[in-house]
């Protein structure tokens, strides 16, 4: 596997037993069936995972997934066929099936492939190449011993590391001819602690598009910090009391809490919802949808982040898109298909889980920019409420806008101070209520550590979120204490 994009692209085609000529010919043939657009997506994904449980490195797996997805578009109609058989005849068969969607004449011709320059945001090649299997096993064992020594109440430790490289080639009748080589790694530490009859769990993890060896540097410094954090969280929760129930002020800590924006506004601003008029934000460009302290962006161009994309899965270079600026709705996130149908331009948000899934508009790294409030002042401003610092995830119904997200570490705020930790609970609200009641935005902006996966229409893709400490005046907290 090569670090050079040109060589790596060549390797991918050779593995697929295909040539550039095969791609050009099949696209031209599809266009002869009078469709508007034809696209080939060739992918080779290699991943490996190692896991430690019960003090033993007991699980290792290696997986290869490869295939081609063919898309034929005519007006609003899409024909899609995919196969994991890679050769010219399988490709041709998939092209015939996809093009059968054609039912009326588009008169477009295939454009000559052009190279659209873009900036590479991460290194190509295998991100696990610099670490031997011996190193991986030693890493897991030493980190296990380190974690267990942190507290006598630790009952179980599980640790996993993963690394994958995803090579994709997008070739389309609109002249697209782009290749990307995307690394992705992560490390996760999970602990169970026991004190008498009480048990709790704590988890920490991080990852991104960088070499796996990042976790191994400086005597495993990053990983050890994650272990400390997982243990701290679990031990803290041992003393937790019932969370309150009802509407109240909530302070959300920096980083991961950005999942609030991802659910509350992100999904509703994906272009398919706008085209189908199923979003609660439909037709609201230029209107105030959040407190003026709020500026929300989706940014695929951050170096090495989990949600970053040098190019999206349609070959459009990754971009920074302002969604909400000073509380005013500025734009949606678009893929090519939905953008063309609505007279917009792709914002580089066309993503797919793999060659076996259809491209839909998705978020990359979505976050709320930092403000001016001192985080401590934000907590001090609350007489009675909840402070949430860790989350397990969320979900949204984009048409009603109703969203939920689950906090896994939270504290009561009483007279401006954090007091008892509380059990994890669900928070729920409507975007316009919640976004308008963000009344303080902290100066401590942070991105999440790189562990998020977003699910939509059954497709999971890696994403990033971020925000500074913020205060939401009113949101429903789903605890048990009334």
């Amino acid at each position, binding site marked *: 596997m090569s670090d050079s994009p040109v060589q790596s692209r060549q390797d991918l085609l050779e593995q697929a037993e295909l040539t550039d000529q095969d791609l050009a010919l099949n696209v031209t043939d599809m266009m002869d*069936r009078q469709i508007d657009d034809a696209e080939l997506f060739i992918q080779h994904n290699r991943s*490996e995972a190692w896991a430690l*449980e*019960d003090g*033993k490195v*007991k*699980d*290792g*797996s*290696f*997986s*290869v*997934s490869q295939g081609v997805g063919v898309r034929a578009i005519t007006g*609003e109609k899409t*024909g*899609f*066929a*995919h196969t*994991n*058989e890679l050769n010219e005849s399988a490709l*041709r068969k998939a*092209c*015939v*099936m*996809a*093009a*059968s*969607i054609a039912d009326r004449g588009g008169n477009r011709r295939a454009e000559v492939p052009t190279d659209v320059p873009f900036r590479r945001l991460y290194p190509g090649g295998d991100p696990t190449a610099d670490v031997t*299997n011996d190193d991986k*096993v030693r890493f897991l064992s030493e980190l296990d011993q380190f974690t267990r020594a942190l507290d006598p109440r630790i009952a*179980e430790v599980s640790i996993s590391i993963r690394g994958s490289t995803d090579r994709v080639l997008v070739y389309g009748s609109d002249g697209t001819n782009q290749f990307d080589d995307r690394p992705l790694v992560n490390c996760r530490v999970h602990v169970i602690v026991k004190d008498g009859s009480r048990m*709790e*769990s704590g988890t920490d993890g991080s990852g991104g598009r960088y070499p796996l060896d990042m976790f191994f540097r400086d005597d495993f410094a990053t990983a050890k910090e994650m272990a400390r954090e997982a243990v701290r969280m679990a031990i803290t929760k041992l003393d937790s009391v019932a969370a309150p*129930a*009802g*509407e109240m002020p909530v302070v959300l800590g920096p980083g991961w809490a950005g999942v609030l924006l991802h659910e509350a506004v992100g999904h509703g601003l994906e272009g398919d919802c706008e085209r*189908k*008029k*199923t979003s609660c934000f439909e037709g609201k460009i230029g209107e105030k949808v959040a407190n003026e302290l709020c500026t929300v962006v989706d940014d695929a161009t951050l170096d090495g982040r989990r949600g970053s994309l040098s190019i999206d899965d349609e070959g459009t270079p990754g971009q920074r898109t302002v969604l909400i600026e000073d509380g005013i709705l500025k734009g949606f996130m678009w893929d090519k298909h939905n953008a063309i149908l609505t007279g917009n331009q792709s914002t580089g948000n066309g993503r797919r889980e793999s060659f076996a899934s*259809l491209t839909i508009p998705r978020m990359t790294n979505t976050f709320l920019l930092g403000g001016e409030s001192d985080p401590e002042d934000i907590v001090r401003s609350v007489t009675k409420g909840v402070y949430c610092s860790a989350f397990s995830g969320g*979900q949204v*119904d984009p*048409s*009603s806008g*109703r969203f*939920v997200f*689950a906090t896994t570490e939270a504290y009561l705020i009483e007279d401006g101070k954090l007091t008892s930790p509380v*059990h*994890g*609970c*669900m928070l*729920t*609200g*409507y975007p316009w209520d919640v976004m308008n009641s963000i009344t303080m935005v902290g100066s401590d902006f942070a991105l999440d550590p790189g562990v998020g996966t977003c699910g939509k229409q059954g497709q999971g893709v890696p994403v990033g979120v971020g925000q500074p400490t913020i205060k939401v005046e*009113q*949101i*429903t907290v*789903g605890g*048990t204490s*009334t």
Partner: protein
Amino acid sequence: MTREESATEAIELHDENVANELSELVERLIEEAQGQGAHQSSATVSDSISVEVSARERDIENIAYEQGRAFRVSVYVDHREGTAVTSDVTDSAIKDTVAQALSIARFTEVDACNGLPDQDRLATEFPDLEQNFPQPVSIEQLKADALLADASSLDFDPCILPADGASASQTATCSVRGNSLGFINANRYTIYGRSATALARSDAGMQTDYWFDQNCQFENIESAEFIGREAAQRALRRLNPRSVTAGTYPVMYDRWTAPSLLYPLIEAISGGNLYRQETYLQDSLNTEVATTSMTLREYPHLRKRIQSRNCDADGVATSEHTIINKGVVNTYLLGTYSARRLKLTSTGHAGGVTNVHVDADLTPVDELLKKMNHGLLVTSLIGSGTNLVTGDYSCGAAGFWVENGEIAYPVDNITIASNLDLMYKGIVGFGDDTQDRGTFRTGSILVNEMTVASN
């Protein structure tokens, strides 16, 4: 692309030989693994063909064809395990993939619990569970079904607007599992599905809901008209929701949400969570964990059911079980590895449960509402807020407020919270509106009290 090469209008199904072909592949994989030095090995190969057609605004939107084959091989060397998965089934890929699995096994540590099931636990009888009903449904038929479901939803009421539309699909799968103890089992099944999404709009806002059905027999899926109308009806009834005053109320899960109430109970007594100590039901065998009025029985061999199976993911024979007997845990749910970790024997549950029936005294649903009198009827849940380690439960919900035993108005943007232990012991009634769609055969379930919060 010449004119002769047009796409087939009917879906090409697997030929009769597919099971033999895949079985040979499994045997080759195991031979290769043993040849390269594995002490034990197992392999799974699956091949599936599917077509899904979706319609929106009374027109076809997408047609998606899928054809894929993948294999997984696990090898054991001195109780060290390595696994490799690939979608490349060429001869050289088979060699490489097996070599990768073995190379991983050399680095993992010895774990005496690793390895194939004991020979006498492997399934030996494979009665036909009648899950395979291949029939050449044409693309035109799927298009017509998707269009009809979409139109039935749009025509149902003027408040229904075009949204995500409807779909019709067909999948045929053949999977073969085998191991170096001589076990081999081929399984073929078909799944036909129809679904519709509906968006209802009023001055107060929009609500969406959906409906779907799937079955291994094409003629047994609910009609496209029904699917479309049901989606529309479900979206309409949610319009103009109100909020409720936070407090403690009885909560009834309707028959479609009741499975998600019961599912954490199954998870909490499953082997993986037990040996990892990730459950509040540690050491719960023969103890009371739910209302004594509830029994859960599992029937793995029911005919014509997608969930049914003769053996679990390890090849261990499945059998009928009383999982919960009058509120008491009668058996844990164990696969081969978790059973060995817990020094017990496998119950044939690697990969989970099959068909679980709720066995209880049933009450007519309107009587159950009367019994509840004043509380929340849950018809939709959002988000997952269950902490299995502590049993803490908190979930987003929508449904209807019930006053004086009657449905009064829709409610939305609500959270319901409690603890699983209290909830299962606090179940006070089972509705007679039994549904038998997925894993759980159950009617509505009434929980005596939960904390309800809203804005």
